[in-house]
């Protein structure tokens, strides 16, 4: 039997989001060979999908793209997208990672990212990259600044009509492509597997995702992004420009009924950021944030919150009890006001749920690293060495170890790279001795 090809590197980074890319760049700059394995068809993670970042209001895509390009063009980094990690186990002094690269049905060497295939494909498929608010085609480039710019055929929606094959100027379409199985042999690894949001469908009181014009915060990021589905903020039900937008904080966090008892840390700040951006794009709209308490924990964050209040964003201290569909596509918010008025109802044109963060990856059955009670990767010295896992030579960074913002994620990625680098040098010394 033929054995799988083996890629030998110093460090394996699992996850090509901002944490993984930063850790990879920091290791590669120290002359270590690094492989980054990413499950999606593009690197960039959640950050590349955001509109702007708090508290600086930098364009997220403008500051993420250079990091993505720096990693992709680094001579010491091999980027492997559209891959599943089947197993990551220790074998003596090495870590062995078994990987499957899913077929794109497009030859990556031939594809020039011209998107002619995409324009000619007749199939519309709801585009998750745009919050489901518009469609992509059955053959598509994931998004405009994806790296790599290589098309993918979505076989579940492909009719095999052959239009993409005819349109492709470089004959890159390959309907018969097979998955590629290979092994990465590394000395150390950084787990940077990020987060997902709890889903809109989780909480009956908030309509289980069935109330029109109730969206989640990542969908709002797309509405606010320059390359968003409508290129402006509109209600998804009917294209109306909303006059009133509300945020429901702790809609998926600090809520034992949803199994997420912890605070997701970033929701207060991203809601404030989005509210500020909405004030800019919809100057006449009323924006309300229903909150339990505001956690503005980072440098410059409290000032950011105060600025939002000064801009006229209304902060209502209340835990929203229920949402219902109102008249003409509006959403009725029912809450108990803290000013003695008692149960109060308010109507808004658009409601955004600040959903909780949950781990993006479960290591069970893949890697013997432990998860903590919150299901994020367990760190064994959370105070003094927050990137150490209970597996020797395996470190973690970013939201893989628990909810955190971009600043803390990047700081932690640097720390994980440093721990990995120390580990590699100790190994070298051990061999030399």
């Amino acid at each position, binding site marked *: 039997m033929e054995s799988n090809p083996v890629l030998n590197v110093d460090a394996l980074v699992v996850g090509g989001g901002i944490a993984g890319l930063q850790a990879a760049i920091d290791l590669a700059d120290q002359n270590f060979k690094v492989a980054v394995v990413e499950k999606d068809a593009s690197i960039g993670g959640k950050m590349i999908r955001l509109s702007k970042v708090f508290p600086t209001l930098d364009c997220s895509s403008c500051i993420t793209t250079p990091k993505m390009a720096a990693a992709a063009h680094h001579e010491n980094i091999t980027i492997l997208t559209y891959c599943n990690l089947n197993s990551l186990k220790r074998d003596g002094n090495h870590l062995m990672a078994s990987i499957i690269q899913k077929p794109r049905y497009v030859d990556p060497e031939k594809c020039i990212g011209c998107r002619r295939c995409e324009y000619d494909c*007749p199939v519309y498929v709801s585009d998750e990259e745009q919050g489901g*608010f*518009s469609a992509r085609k059955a053959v598509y480039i994931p998004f405009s600044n994806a790296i790599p710019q290589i098309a993918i055929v979505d076989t579940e929606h492909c009719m095999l009509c052959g239009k993409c094959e005819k349109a492709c100027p470089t004959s890159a379409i390959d309907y018969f492509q097979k998955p590629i199985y290979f092994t990465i042999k590394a000395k150390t690894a950084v787990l940077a597997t990020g987060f997902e949001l709890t889903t809109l469908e989780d909480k009956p009181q908030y309509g289980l995702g069935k109330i029109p014009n109730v969206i989640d915060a990542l969908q709002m990021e797309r509405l606010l992004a320059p390359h968003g589905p409508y290129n402006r903020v509109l209600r998804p039900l009917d*294209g109306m*420009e909303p006059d009133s937008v509300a945020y429901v904080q702790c809609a998926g966090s600090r809520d034992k009924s949803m199994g997420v008892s912890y605070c997701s840390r970033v929701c207060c700040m991203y809601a404030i950021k989005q509210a500020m951006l909405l004030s800019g794009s919809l100057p006449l709209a009323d924006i309300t944030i229903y909150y339990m308490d505001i956690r503005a924990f980072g440098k410059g964050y409290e000032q950011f919150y105060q600025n939002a209040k000064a801009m006229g964003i209304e902060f209502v201290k209340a835990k929203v009890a229920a949402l219902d569909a109102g008249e003409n596509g509006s959403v009725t918010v029912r809450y108990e006001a803290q000013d003695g008025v008692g149960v109060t109802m308010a109507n808004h044109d658009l409601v955004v749920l600040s959903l909780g963060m949950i781990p993006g990856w479960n290591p069970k059955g893949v890697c013997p690293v432990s998860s903590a009670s919150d299901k994020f990767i367990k760190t064994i010295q959370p105070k003094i060495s927050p990137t150490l896992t209970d597996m020797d030579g395996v470190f973690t960074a970013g939201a893989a170890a628990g909810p955190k913002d971009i600043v803390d994620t990047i700081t932690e990625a640097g720390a994980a790279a440093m721990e990995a680098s120390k580990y590699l040098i100790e190994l070298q010394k051990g061999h030399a001795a």
Partner: protein
Amino acid sequence: MNREDEIMNKKKEAMKQLRGDRKEWITMASTMVKEQRKERKAIKKYLENQPATVPEIADATGIPSDKVLWYLATLKKYGDIVEGEKDGSFFRYVLTESAPE
């Protein structure tokens, strides 16, 4: 049979096999595309006569308004329509001259 024909025939056979393997997906996608063509055509036909808002198109075509907006956002992305003037709280959408069908 020359070598080129032989390659073509082999590919035809392989495609036939692949179509058989993916029959369920292909049937589902074909049904979906048929419906989408009909709805896209109805939206574009309405826009041929005048620029229109989402509720106007929904009323005229019977397609739910959220789906109309979904089509419009996609048609705009691929260059078939552009956003026109604002009318109250809604925008009007305009068919471009280059739009096919």
